[in-house]
């Protein structure tokens, strides 16, 4: 009895404390997530009443080449983006860990990440402008032919990937650097006493001990990149010739340009499932939560 009364009293306090956040969670996460599933079973253009169509949207989706193309482009974008971004970030982190503790260098490396996607897209839109852009001037300087970059269906997605590598490699570097600094220096000292080379140290000590950071970077950057939207909305708007109409762009377009709310919801629910499956798989494979340190 006394146990009940005290737990009840602290429960009252608990719910008072979480009340605003709980409202936020229910109103803007839990309910909409459920509602998205509900909408995905309807035909709805926002103006008329939603009309229940069962699994029609999902069937339509599976037969929609644009949907598959969007998924393919997003996956392709991830493959273009992530390996290079992680490699460059890791390289930068190792270099900074060895060479300098300068806050200026860190801040400068991180700066692109602090700018919005829109700003970064504008900067590179200018840099990559086929006629006025400095990149083509440099290309010409080396005696190569100027390219269209974002205007070329074969190059647009690669260009978008390059832009985001530029924006995110500093973030990657900072995360890896933080990870590197948790590795005790004596490991390297005892390794060097045993005559282990720098490259072996990197492979046998640094990389394995960076695993938790690596998982975090992989999971967040892969799920993040798969949902690429902002840069494309500013630079190519899905073009040229649909060559950058990635899945999220296609979803937003369906929802807010074609007003096909049900269809867009069906695709977004599917996307959510894909992301969830990927995250769980990745965590499972890399034993995410375990660290070999401490």
């Amino acid at each position, binding site marked *: 009895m006394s146990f009940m009364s005290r737990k009840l009293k602290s429960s009252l306090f608990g719910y008072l404390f979480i009340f605003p956040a709980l409202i936020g969670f229910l109103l803007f996460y839990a309910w909409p997530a459920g*509602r998205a599933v509900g909408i995905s079973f309807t035909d709805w253009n926002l103006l008329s009443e939603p009309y229940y169509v069962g699994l029609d949207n999902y069937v339509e989706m599976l037969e929609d080449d644009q949907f598959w193309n969007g998924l393919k482009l997003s996956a392709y974008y991830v493959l273009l983006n992530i390996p290079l971004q992680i490699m460059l970030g890791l390289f*930068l982190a190792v270099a900074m860990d060895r060479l300098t503790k300068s806050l200026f260098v860190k801040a400068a490396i991180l700066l692109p990440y602090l700018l919005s996607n829109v700003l970064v897209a504008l900067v590179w839109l200018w840099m990559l402008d086929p006629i006025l852009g400095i990149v083509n001037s440099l290309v010409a300087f080396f005696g190569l032919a100027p390219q269209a970059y974002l205007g070329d269906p074969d190059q647009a997605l690669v260009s978008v990937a390059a832009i985001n590598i530029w924006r995110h490699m500093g973030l990657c570097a900072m995360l890896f650097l933080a990870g590197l600094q948790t590795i005790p220096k004596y490991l390297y000292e005892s390794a060097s006493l045993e005559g282990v080379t720098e490259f072996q140290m990197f492979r046998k000590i640094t990389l394995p001990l960076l695993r938790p950071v690596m998982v975090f970077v992989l999971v967040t950057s892969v799920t993040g990149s798969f949902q690429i939207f902002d840069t494309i909305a500013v630079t190519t708007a899905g073009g040229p010739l649909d060559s950058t109409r990635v899945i999220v762009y296609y979803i937003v377009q369906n929802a807010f340009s074609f007003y096909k709310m049900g269809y867009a919801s069906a695709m977004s629910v599917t996307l959510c499932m894909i992301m969830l499956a990927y995250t769980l798989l990745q965590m499972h494979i890399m034993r995410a939560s375990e660290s070999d340190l401490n």
Partner: protein
Amino acid sequence: MILIKKITPARCVAWLVLITMLVVTLFPLLFVAKTSFVPAGELYTTSTQLLPDNPTLSNYKKIFGLLSTEESIAAGGSGANINITTSMINSVIFTGIIVIVQTFNCALAAYAFARIPFYGSKLLFGAFVASMMIPSVVTLIPNFVLMRDLGLLNSMLGMVAPFFLMHGFAVFFLRQFFISLPKDIEEAAQLDGANSFMIFFKIALPLSWAPLMTVATLTTINMWNEFLWPFLIATDDSMKTLPVALQSFKSQTPQGQPDWGGLMAATVIATIPTIIMLFFFGRRIVESVQFTGGK
């Protein structure tokens, strides 16, 4: 093991690469800054130069609305408009409301999850954390419909609504911190007659400045840069935040070249707050960003 840093070939290469990366990072921004001072007519002739021949402020005057439409078009404008002052103010209000309210709400919730035993606490905490995994595009449509039904399109409340009450990461992060606070300090306060609210406000919060600032810093970065939601909600120029205003400024030139001078001037203006933040809070920003990966 203190070694005198030897100049080895490996170190030279590493320095060379680091400097190259720095140049690659900073050069585009400097180049944008240069362009913003180039008069419209000289864009082509100066495209490979590092400094403009005849620097001008007309691009800046244009985006701050200091030129009439005719003058603006004469200065290479497309006739498109960007009200950079308004959108800057919108961005500050948008980010400010979210950072303050969200951090406070999340601190309250995180404290409860860390310290107050209540029915359903584990389940709800799990749900809060899981909310981080939902792609924003999933909740986008229902949230938009909700805002429309509530008549909150083109309103500040509608813009901050999905963000300002709760954020899974902030709750998770702050809970980890509150758990690590020494419990007997709070027990001492309990014996001193403080209830949960007093312990939170008088003991836990004052001891949590560093993590609160970390969360606030990260939220500031994310919200200052948030594009898609304000883009959907703020269709009216007077409500647009900076990223939205920049995007629409860019896309208001359906035919031919955009107004590069104006666009680059706007880009520079939009970059300045970030640089100022970085200048004053560089260490905190770098460390906050690093915190996200460290759990």
